[in-house]
């Protein structure tokens, strides 16, 4: 059992709190992604887990054991860096075996078995005797991943391992990662700023901003029910539409809503923001019950036959992601339909209902 407990950890660099009093538990055998924009503190948090940085305050526990003051080599974690580390004087197989050399509990045959296993999983057996000059950057990173998992430590950390890779190498690495993690149920923390990668790999995503974790949820929950406006904006391409609305006694009124929608009674009356994902809004040529007319002001072809359009409704601008071409030309009138169940309500950037 190796769940990771982050107990009120803060890391300050001068006046800046890179990690701001984070309190979080990553469960055993789970792939957790730390997702967030550059400079949100996700790499710092990971380096604290690895022991490469000391927290200013707070504790880190692995499987119930306090490791805050242990140096990295005593924490028994594997780690993959953004820069692909492959020891230049060692072959691929020697690289994989290196961390196990310093584990006295393992005998030679067990080490060999694990190296072979990882070589198979990574599909690198023909390259076992290759050196760094023979490998492209993606393969070097695969070696780094292999080295981090072959020792079978209970915790493996990934610090943006695909950042410097080309598209092909990136896909290859993600496949390798999936195969490896399916095989060895280790607790994994994976730092990335790429939401697609996080959605693909993670069991749960921790969305970070300015040193804090805003939300920690399964990818689909994080996507469809972001607890903060930041989450709605950051996830998805384009992000969630945020439209000003007012809460009146009979419900919520907004330009894109045909009629008021019911709101929970506890919400204070007045200004409110509604959030709706662009792909949840539907568009039609004819006006139907519950639809709102708007002007098509922009359109672009997206992937998989989808169209990304911008529609002006009243004073509001709505991005709509539709299947198939929009029913009107630029400047023409289209009718938008917003499913009430998909509308999220935000006050001061925090979700209050919906």
């Amino acid at each position: 059992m190796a769940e990771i407990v982050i107990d009120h950890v803060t890391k300050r660099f001068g006046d800046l709190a890179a990690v701001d009093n984070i309190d979080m538990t990553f469960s055993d055998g789970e792939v957790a992604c730390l997702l967030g924009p550059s400079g949100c503190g996700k790499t710092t948090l990971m380096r604290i887990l690895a022991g490469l940085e000391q927290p200013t305050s707070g504790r880190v526990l692995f499987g119930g054991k306090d490791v805050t003051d242990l140096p990295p080599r005593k924490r028994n974690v594997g780690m993959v860096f953004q820069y692909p580390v492959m020891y230049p004087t060692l072959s691929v197989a020697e690289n994989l075996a290196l961390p196990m050399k310093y584990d006295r509990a393992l005998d030679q045959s067990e080490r060999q078995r694990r190296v072979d296993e990882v070589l198979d999983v990574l599909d690198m057996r023909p390259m076992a005797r290759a050196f760094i000059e023979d490998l492209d950057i993606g393969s070097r990173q695969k070696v780094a991943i292999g080295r981090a998992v072959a020792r079978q430590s209970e915790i493996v950390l990934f610090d943006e391992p695909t950042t410097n890779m080309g598209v092909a190498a990136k896909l290859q690495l993600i496949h390798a990662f999936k195969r490896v993690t399916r095989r060895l149920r280790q607790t994994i923390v994976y730092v990335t700023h790429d939401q697609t990668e996080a959605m693909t790999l993670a069991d749960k995503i921790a969305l970070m901003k300015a040193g804090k974790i805003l939300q920690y949820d399964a990818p689909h929950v994080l996507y469809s029910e972001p607890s903060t406006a930041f989450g709605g904006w950051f996830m998805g391409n384009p992000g969630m539409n945020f439209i000003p609305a007012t809460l009146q006694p009979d419900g919520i009124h907004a330009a894109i809503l045909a009629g008021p929608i019911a709101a929970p009674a506890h919400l204070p009356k007045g200004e409110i923001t509604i959030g709706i994902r662009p792909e949840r809004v539907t568009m039609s040529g004819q006006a139907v019950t519950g639809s709102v007319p708007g002007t098509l002001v922009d359109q672009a072809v997206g992937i998989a036959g989808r169209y990304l359009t911008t529609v002006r409704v009243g004073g509001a601008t709505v991005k709509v992601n539709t299947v198939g071409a929009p029913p009107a030309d630029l400047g023409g009138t289209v009718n938008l339909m917003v499913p009430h169940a998909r509308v999220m309500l935000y006050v001061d950037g925090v979700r209050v209902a919906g």
Partner: protein
Amino acid sequence: MSLATQTPGRRRLMDNPRARVLVLLAPVMMFFIVFNTIPTLWLLGLSFYKYSLTGGVPPEFIGFKNFVGIFNAKNAIWFDLSRTFTFVISGVAFQTLLGAALGFLFWGSRNMPGRRVALTLLFAPMVLTPVATGTFFRFIYDPTFGVLNYLIRAVVETGPIDFLGNPKLAFWAVLAVDCWMWTPFMTLMTLAALGSVPKAELEAAEIDRVPFLRRLTLVIWHHGKFIMMLGILLRTIDSFKTLDLIIPMTKGGPGQNTRLVALELNKQSFESFNMGWSSAYAVLLLLISIAMTSVFIYVLNLRRRKETEG
């Protein structure tokens, strides 16, 4: 456009890539030829002549007699060379080891308060003029009023020690000053070499539980060796030419105990004015320097070749 119409000739010249290279290189090439190539060729020619500035006799071509004379003379070049190589090898070895040790200390103490001040102080000896260093060390070593004697006699009961006058001590006393002066240089090279090691590789080695000594060979030496070898090469060549540090201290004495090749050359050419003889001597030193440099470059290239071959 106005530029083109004003100076069409120059524009055309600078547009031609080959011509541009030549034009841009010309000043430095001129400098190199006037101050380096011509004097070297002149030196080479002069080494075949019997020519003394004080004799008032025109130069006389004597073939290889100067070279033969250098090897047959009573104070044969061999003594000077062996002394010089002892000086170079033990000096550079000591400076490299101590310099590297200090480099690692500074590297590992990045958060130590006062580190910058300590580094600046450490590099002070290196930027001093060797003549000044030699002069003040002559006073430090002085047997009657030198501070070193004062300190030693404050601890141990002994007579005055004449560091620079004692034939057994003079060589090592001079070598110690050379080390005092140039160890910081190797510290600097060590810091530069350590700076060239990718941080992620060091951190990965730490996480992979690699012990320090293994990390040294696996990661640090692999990335830092080129800069370190370059430092050792520069130090070796420079140490081979040591002159200005020793002149104010011993002038090569007592006897010939601190007479390195550069001192002998200096004496023969600028005190005795035996221009032909000292030209031949200088040619020999030049050949030795080239040989040493070639060995270093060969070693460095060999390593690199091995790497690329895998």
